[in-house]
């Protein structure tokens, strides 16, 4: 037994070392750097300044605006992502009698999630261009006699909406697949029994599907929230394409700008640590809530 453990350690050691070098070390380094003043370009040693970076960011209008921008984005994206992907997954599961069509829909919904965020945003920039498909489509729907420019990239509200649309388009398929896996694991016998008892489709959904899908829903809620709060590449592409920064200056983008434009490694790492702590606390709270609500009909 001890020999097996010994060899087990040998074989996991490379992965542990890799993770330690490229994940744990940067995390600890960031935490330490957040208490120092350091210019990214300077060769001088970092100067310890205690909590000054944290005080600065939490009293600066810029970071508070980033929190607001992140909140708008996260709420605007999170709710449709977790709810609509469940609806789509339920519909796709309903195509079980047509496996080829079912697989086709799974592929269609999932394929945007394998495209990188930068590529997705670049493609959508063309769609949201004043002469692009988005304006043409809305003008067609509204039957406008003269085309209206909805200023997808220019107006603050539209820029926020555009980034939410792109993110939703990109990740809805990912969560559809996760829900799909959860849905097909629910025994069909439970639905048959409910049908015999005269339950309606809606009743079956609420009393069987949702309770038994709770572990999957829990996973989706946590992953979706973390993903929405950590969004970066879409906002980056938009800002560098000329969109106003303030409405979409999410925390991750602010971290990047603080380091790369303002050269302040200390403040950018303080923002990173703050974001990490927020996500950690939120995840712990969510896990505690869901742990008490497990259901089993077996």
């Amino acid at each position, binding site marked *: 037994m001890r020999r097996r453990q010994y060899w087990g350690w*040998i074989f996991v*050691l*490379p992965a542990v*070392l890799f993770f330690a*070098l490229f994940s744990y070390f940067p995390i600890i380094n960031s935490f330490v750097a957040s208490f120092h003043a350091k*210019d*990214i*370009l*300077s*060769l001088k040693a970092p100067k310890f300044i205690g909590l000054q970076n944290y005080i600065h960011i939490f009293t*600066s*209008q*810029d970071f508070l605006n980033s929190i607001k921008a992140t909140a708008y984005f996260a709420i605007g994206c999170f709710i449709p992502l977790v709810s609509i992907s469940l609806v789509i997954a339920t519909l796709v599961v309903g195509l079980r009698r047509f496996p080829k069509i079912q697989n086709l829909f799974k592929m269609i919904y999932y394929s945007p999630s394998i495209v990188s965020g930068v590529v997705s945003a670049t493609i959508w920039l063309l769609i949201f*261009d*004043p*002469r692009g498909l988005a*304006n043409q489509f809305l*003008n067609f729907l509204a039957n*406008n006699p*003269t*085309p*209206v*420019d909805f*200023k997808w*990239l*220019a*107006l*603050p509200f539209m820029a926020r909406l555009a980034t939410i649309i792109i993110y939703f388009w990109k990740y809805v398929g990912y969560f559809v697949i996760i829900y799909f896996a959860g849905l097909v694991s629910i025994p069909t016998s439970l639905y048959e029994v409910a049908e015999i008892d005269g339950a309606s489709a809606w009743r079956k959904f609420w009393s069987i599907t949702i309770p038994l899908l709770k572990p999957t829903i829990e996973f989706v809620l946590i992953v979706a929230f973390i993903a929405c709060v950590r969004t970066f590449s879409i906002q980056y592409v938009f800002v*560098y*394409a*000329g*969109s*106003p*920064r*303030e*409405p979409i200056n999410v925390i991750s983008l602010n971290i990047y*700008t603080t380091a*790369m*434009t*303002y*050269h*302040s490694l200390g403040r950018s790492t303080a923002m990173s640590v703050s974001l990490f702590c927020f996500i950690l606390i939120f995840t712990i709270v969510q896990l505690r809530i869901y742990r008490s609500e497990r259901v089993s009909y077996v």
Partner: protein
Amino acid sequence: MKFLSTVLVITMLLAGAALVLATPQQEAAGPVELMYWTHEDPNRTALEEKLIAEFQGQNPNVTVVRETAPSTPIIEKILTAFAARNAPDIFNIGAENEWQYIVGERVAPVDLEVVGYSSYKTMQDDYLPVTFNGALYEGKIYGLPMEITNWCIYVNNKYYREVGLDPATDYPKTWEQMLDVAEKLTIREGEVITRRGFDFRYPYYLNFFVPMANQLGGTVLTADGKSAAVDSAAWIKVLQYMADFGPNGRNLGSPTYTNARRTFNRDDNSVAMCISGLYQYDRIKAENEPFLPYVSVVPYPRFQNAVNDNGTAVYGHYYMVNASSSPAVRKAAWKLTWYFSNHEEEFLDQIGLTIPSKKLLDTAIYKNKKFADVFIDDMATADFIMVHESGPKFEDVIEEMVQDVMLSNVAPAEAARKGKVKINDILSQ
């Protein structure tokens, strides 16, 4: 067997760690490899690769690896490389971005022995006075010029004639006239612009926008350099101008449209005027030669009540050498960049880049270069671009100010106030 396997695994891990942690060092003598990073420019690539081949033939122990990246991302790429202490031996970015490398002692001063001058002063004397403004620091020169440039307005004469304007006389001399001329040239379908009459060279605000404020007497900093001055009446007026120009005003253009300079060359009815440098002519020649006869260049407009006669800022790209490279590499790097910089006639003739040595100014190539006279005349009254170790940060703030008034309907006075707070915060760091 198991013991041997254990030893093998541990050895592989240690070897891997050594590879990761090892920092390769060039030999003090022997073959030298120069890593050169520069921004994309197909015309310059062809010329520099030819010069590199010649240089390598003359210096067989030197190998040059040339890599390019688009002009905006390369700024971050170089910054990241220097932060990681894995930067190229030679690089170039605009003077306003290079300055922080000089002040931060990340680049080396020019090797006088290589360039053959007894002092930096005698070197300066062989060039136009403005040439080394972006590379001279505490008496030393930290870069060799690749180009010293200003911008003027490129005009598509066909579109002028289409709307009944004469491109020789009806081009806008003032910013106030620009609004009306651009309006005549603009084509819209409803609110959607399909052809812009004119648009600015976003996001290079230090180049084109700060000079507009300078024309009205505005400056970025106070005279003592200790405080922001972007809330003056001059700045508020210029910001109001941008608000009037933008999508919420007369809807003539926006930072969210494709950069005007990029589409101008195509002559595809997307833009009638753009801001660019002398090099743009050679780019049009390379991309769309039939379009050339329909192109003219006019001076940068001034405000009607301008107190200063500024065109766009003069700026430069300098070949710079990494101060952390070994002495042998630095020497070879200066030799190569001096070789580039000494081919000023080819730079001007083939790619429209001006290295303003006095030697060049006497040549027929310079005197006969199409539109060079427009650029030279405008350069005569232009200021050099703001070089300050926080220059790029100021530009970022100014970009936000302009976006606020153009896109977010923020009042110019409020945008100026916010800008002042941010710049003062940068200065206090």
